[in-house]
């Protein structure tokens, strides 16, 4: 089992947002979570990532058997967890190359692996950037500074490619993408994460990303719980009928 979440409860600013969420993801699977605004989708991703302010008040979450909730955010990253951010953050004055090399090497050190040399890292970065159709020049610019919405999302995928996680939680990675970028990002997710020893949790509002990354399971999150689970056809039904209809059905 890759990720196992049992009865997860989490608060933000004293308000209970996740109210006993259960979810199991096995290696090799791609899951999608859909749901109306305010259902708790981003809270789920932040609570699993360990963001301060997202307080877990009950339940458990394990990644490959390790207690995620007991770890610091950077330890969760080293354990193989990657969050793709809905709003990637700007860090002025630090290039993507420098940022990712430090991040990757600090993960590698935490896992007892040798850090990559500058040359090896650049080779890796060039390969992954190529996969996502991103110009290396972009990676030499400051992290997300001056990037368009689409470029930021594409850069998130390059981060994922370079850091090579075992579980990626991608929070509305499809928002802000035009159709060409959506295709590239979809192809990137498949190329990087579609593997027997990896898994993906896609958080999305729309069916359209799922046209390019076909999920094995689709879950509907409403009011802090998963209320329905199905195959790809559930997303199609949602797109056609809306949340209210499908949740009520």
């Amino acid at each position, binding site marked *: 089992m890759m990720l196992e979440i049992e009865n997860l409860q989490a608060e933000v600013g004293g308000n209970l947002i996740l109210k006993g969420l259960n979810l199991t993801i096995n290696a090799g699977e791609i899951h999608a979570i859909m749901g109306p605004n305010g259902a708790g989708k981003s809270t789920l991703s932040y609570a699993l990532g360990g963001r301060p302010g997202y307080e877990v008040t009950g339940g458990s979450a394990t990644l490959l058997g390790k207690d995620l909730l007991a770890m610091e*955010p950077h330890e969760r990253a*080293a354990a193989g967890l990657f969050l793709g951010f809905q709003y990637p953050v*700007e860090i*002025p004055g630090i290039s993507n190359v420098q940022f990712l090399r430090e*991040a990757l090497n600090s993960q590698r050190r935490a896992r007892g692996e040798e850090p990559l040399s500058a040359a090896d890292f650049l080779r890796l970065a060039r390969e992954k950037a190529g996969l996502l159709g991103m110009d290396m020049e972009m990676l030499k610019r400051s992290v997300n500074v001056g990037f368009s919405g689409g470029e930021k999302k594409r850069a998130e995928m390059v981060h994922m490619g370079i*850091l090579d996680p075992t579980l990626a939680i991608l929070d509305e990675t499809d928002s802000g993408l035009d159709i060409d970028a959506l295709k590239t990002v979809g192809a990137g997710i498949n190329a990087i994460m579609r593997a027997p020893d990896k898994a993906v949790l896609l958080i999305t509002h729309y069916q359209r990303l799922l046209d390019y990354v076909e999920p094995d399971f689709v879950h509907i999150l409403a009011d802090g719980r998963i209320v329905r689970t199905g195959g790809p056809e559930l997303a199609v039904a949602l797109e056609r009928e809306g949340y209210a209809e499908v949740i009520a059905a």
Partner: protein
Amino acid sequence: MNAPVKNAEALEAVRKASDYEWGFVSDIEQEFAPKGLNEDTVRFISAKKDEPEWMLDWRLKAYRHWLTMESPDWAKLDMAPIDYQDAYYYAAPKEKATLGSLDELDPEIRRTYEKLGIPIEEQKVLANVEGARRVAVDAVFDSVSVATTFRKELEEAGVIFRSISEAIREFPDLVKKWLGKVVPMHDNYFAALNCAVFSDGTFVYIPEGVRCPMELSTYFRINAENTGQFERTLIIAEKGSHVSYLEGCTAPMRDENQLHAAVVELVALDDAEIKYSTVQNWYPGDAEGKGGIYNFVTKRALCQGRNSKVSWTQVETGSAITWKYPSCVLNGENSVGEFYSVAVTNNHQQADTGTKMIHNGKNTRSIIISKGISAGVSSGTYRGLVRMAANAEGARNFTQCDSLLLGDRCGAHTVPYIEVRNPSAIVEHEATTSKISDDQLFYAMQRGLDTESAVSLIVNGFAKDVLKQLPMEFAVEAQKLLGISLEGSVG
């Protein structure tokens, strides 16, 4: 990049550093002047240095003037009055001050510099850095210069690189011509004190048309207890010459405050350029604010010649209190003054630092980039003056002051003074204050960085415009220092 050995050693020292790696004390037999300050102290120092009569007279004049002055109180600094009688004004290792060769250097001093990662052995530098840039070093230990490297090679190029004590004896005319001309002895309280009791420092003379073949550097180390360090640096760049000079400082951890009151004078003649870089890492005191260096420094450059240029770059991470305004007096037509500064304060540190750009000549230009980073309960103030004199036709200044706050108990202040007496002059000032955002921290941590590394990275990004002005090897040291000096400030 071929890193010189100094770099590798310094990096290793930095890597090992936890709190203040340089806080060790070296056990060296030392000779002190009697405690306290009076005319006899001044005479003692002058005699120790074998100084000519004119120098002693100059010192005594400064001392008598200092007695009539009052300690300045306009800076945003909270400090108890200093008892000038409760300190030593001269401490020297008990060896002869001038050495025939480096082999005669007290092994303990040699070890001290080795620990600090500073290359005072030429052959070692030469052996390890083939093809890489070499740096000539003047090492000042408490009150005396203990080693000056690469002297011969520099002299072949016509460059004079000496301790100031030696220069006073060997090149009295040059010293007499410029000493106190950029910073007059009556300039301010600490400058007057320095004139009276300065013990050593560095003298650099670059002759006309010479590009100094290597970077010059001085490492200042305060070791002795209860001792003030009053160093004096004088750099003269003749017409069309060029020099890059680096200054680094450390001191042991001690419970009491130690005074460091330096004066640095730079002179740039026609078409000459001086680049002066400082990484100041004096002991800042402990987390409760006990001990630390009082760093009261007067640094000023005279851009006397046409098209001359002086660039100050400073990374200030140490000292309990910093009071320092490296300035440029732009007399020559088309002369350029630059000031790039990163000042970090943590715990109980206080810094009041900035610059003065005095535009006297036509079409003079200046740029000021100041980055203040405050954490803990510290306070950082940028204080700067831009003056456009009546004759400064077409002069321009651009100033950017940014402050970054870590936590909610520290303070950042910006105090710009602008005086414009020429209607064609243009002065621009931009200022921002921001906090390290939780978004940035979490983003970096989610990618795998621990809190300290994330803070260090974000802070280095904030300071990048200044750090990129530093010579490469210095920049690497400075980056590490920024991270170390902010350890424990978040989370």
